[in-house]
């Protein structure tokens, strides 16, 4: 038996539940409910209310990615440093949320940020009064960061941990002060980690679903929520066709982003496609 046969159960699974559905999506995206070829499904998204959702999704994902990088990089740098004895337990603490269901985490976030939630109770207790968080864009970005931060920390931590400490000493030796050690050696050498961190945060954040609806009381809708909404619009006869074309647009956007990241670091995840 050829070695490739061992993967056949997986191949069958993928064929049934990923490849075939994807072909369906393509079919629906380019046809009318009657089955005739059309491009009108795509025209739908030049309408401002749909275009706005795409732009908003990209904007929120960008905020989320930047925040994750700002919060995550120093954390990863600290964790990867030598001379700190409790690294393992801290890494586990940081990764713990990753192993928990996303919806569960978002519901937890809701009860923290709610008008009558933990945050406001605490603020009131120290006499600062309530703040309105749930329902704002800030809440959505916070929810995204909360969910995706570990995916930024982990790849950067892994790369930094593997880095030979002697290259830092070499940089010092060649005249780098502590700041230049970071900018000239540590950051450039951890670029592969940064790129895969960005990939692992930005991609799912663009298409994230449920987080925004839950944390904005349904006021802010991102791309993932929009697709969900379109497919469930029972009164619209073209809902499957428009929903499919929107899904394809998101897929292409993601492929383009991977292409960009691939330019920055040719060895990153998913790079082989381009």
């Amino acid at each position: 038996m050829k070695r490739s046969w061992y993967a056949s159960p997986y191949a069958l699974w993928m064929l049934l539940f990923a490849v075939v559905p994807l072909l369906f999506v393509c079919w629906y995206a380019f046809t009318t409910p009657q089955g005739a070829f059309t491009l009108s499904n795509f025209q739908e998204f030049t309408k401002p209310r749909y275009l706005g959702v795409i732009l908003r999704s990209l904007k929120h994902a960008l905020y989320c990615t930047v925040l994750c990088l700002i919060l995550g990089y120093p954390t990863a740098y600290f964790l990867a440093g030598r001379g700190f004895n409790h690294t393992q337990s801290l890494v586990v603490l940081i990764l713990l949320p990753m192993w928990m269901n996303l919806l569960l985490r978002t519901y937890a976030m809701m009860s923290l940020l709610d008008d009558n939630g933990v945050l406001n109770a605490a603020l009131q207790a120290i006499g600062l009064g309530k703040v309105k968080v749930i329902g704002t864009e800030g809440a959505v970005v916070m929810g995204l960061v909360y969910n995706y931060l570990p995916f930024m920390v982990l790849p950067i931590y892994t790369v930094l941990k593997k880095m030979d400490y002697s290259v830092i000493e070499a940089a010092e030796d060649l005249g780098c002060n502590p700041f230049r050690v970071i900018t000239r050696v540590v950051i450039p050498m951890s670029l592969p980690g940064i790129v895969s961190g960005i990939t692992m945060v930005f991609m799912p954040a663009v298409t994230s679903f449920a987080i925004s609806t839950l944390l904005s009381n349904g006021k802010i809708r991102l791309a993932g929520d929009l697709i969900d909404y379109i497919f469930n619009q029972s009164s619209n006869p073209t809902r499957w066709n428009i929903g499919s074309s929107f899904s394809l647009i998101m897929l292409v956007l993601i492929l383009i982003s991977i292409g960009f990241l691939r330019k920055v670091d040719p060895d990153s995840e998913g790079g082989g496609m381009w």
Partner: protein
Amino acid sequence: MVQDTRLIELKGVCKNFGDTQVLHDVDLYIRKCEFITLLGPSGCGKTTLLRIIGGFEMPSSGEVLFEGKDMTGIPPYKRRINTVFQKYALFNHLNVFDNIAFGLNLKTPEQLGAKSKKEKKEEIARRVNRMLKLVKMEGYEKRSIDALSGGQQQRIAIARALVNEPEVLLLDEPLGALDLKLRKEMQLELKAMQQQLGITFIYVTHDQEEALTMSDTIAVMNGGRIQQIGDPKRIYDEPNNAFVADFIGESNIVDGIMLEDDLVEFCGTEFQCVDEGFDTNEPVDVVIRPEDIMIVGEDVGMLTGTVQSVIFKGVHYEMMIEASDRRWKVHSTTMQPVGTRVGMTIVPYNIHIMRKATTADAAPVQEARKEA
């Protein structure tokens, strides 16, 4: 040429890691343009001593002087010292050219004698190319580090350090990862570079042959102490104690009794020697190099024994000869078959007498050096 000025001076340097003391009260000076090797077995403190000179470790006590000025607390990036690291520590996000140019890029145009950024760039290119030529790596500018062999990476690491024109170059077992032939070539090349550039080299190795080949001065270390300092010939011919004798070259070390000046007894026989100043009947270590034992007829030897084994070593045969209840290692160009009864003689000046080592026996090291 080695000059008399003391460039670096260590005074009473001690270093503790937790409860273990790795350096005990080390005193050492290094002269301008000297090629000095810190030689010793692993764990003897030689790398720690090098790292203290480089500024990567702080001494627990004692001080490090550079041209007479204390530099104990100065960080590495402010020292006029560069290092070739054990595993090269090259920057694999940069190509060969940018690796070598790394230190120069950090300098201002004025520091490189340039008036503008453009002139700085040209000056850097000039200096990098000169270094590539020196380490025989011309044409490799654009290569990535991962595409180089161990020997090539090693050359780039040397170029990256030397291009900054340091006062002192520290080398931490830089040839350890190379194969024997390449290592021998690089030894000679390094020595030639050092003489050509007139830079002080401080070299760390556990390979005694490497140390003998390259150094102006060798400091033999053991247990965090310097056991002996001197030029290679002196260290080889007149080891201070049994440790140095055993570590540098091969030797037979025997317990002996110093009967009077120039007369020692070991293996139940009295031998003429050329050492004086010991107490009467003082127990001593007697060191005899394998190549200094001459094989003669059984009836004329000072000691007689039986050949136990013979190994062909290329230039000579190495024989183990059992005599007086111990085995002697003997190097000879003529072979004696196993089982032969032979006699052995040793001329007086090849018998080296050493005081028995006491725990902190390292006192007379600097004196020996002044005479040399």
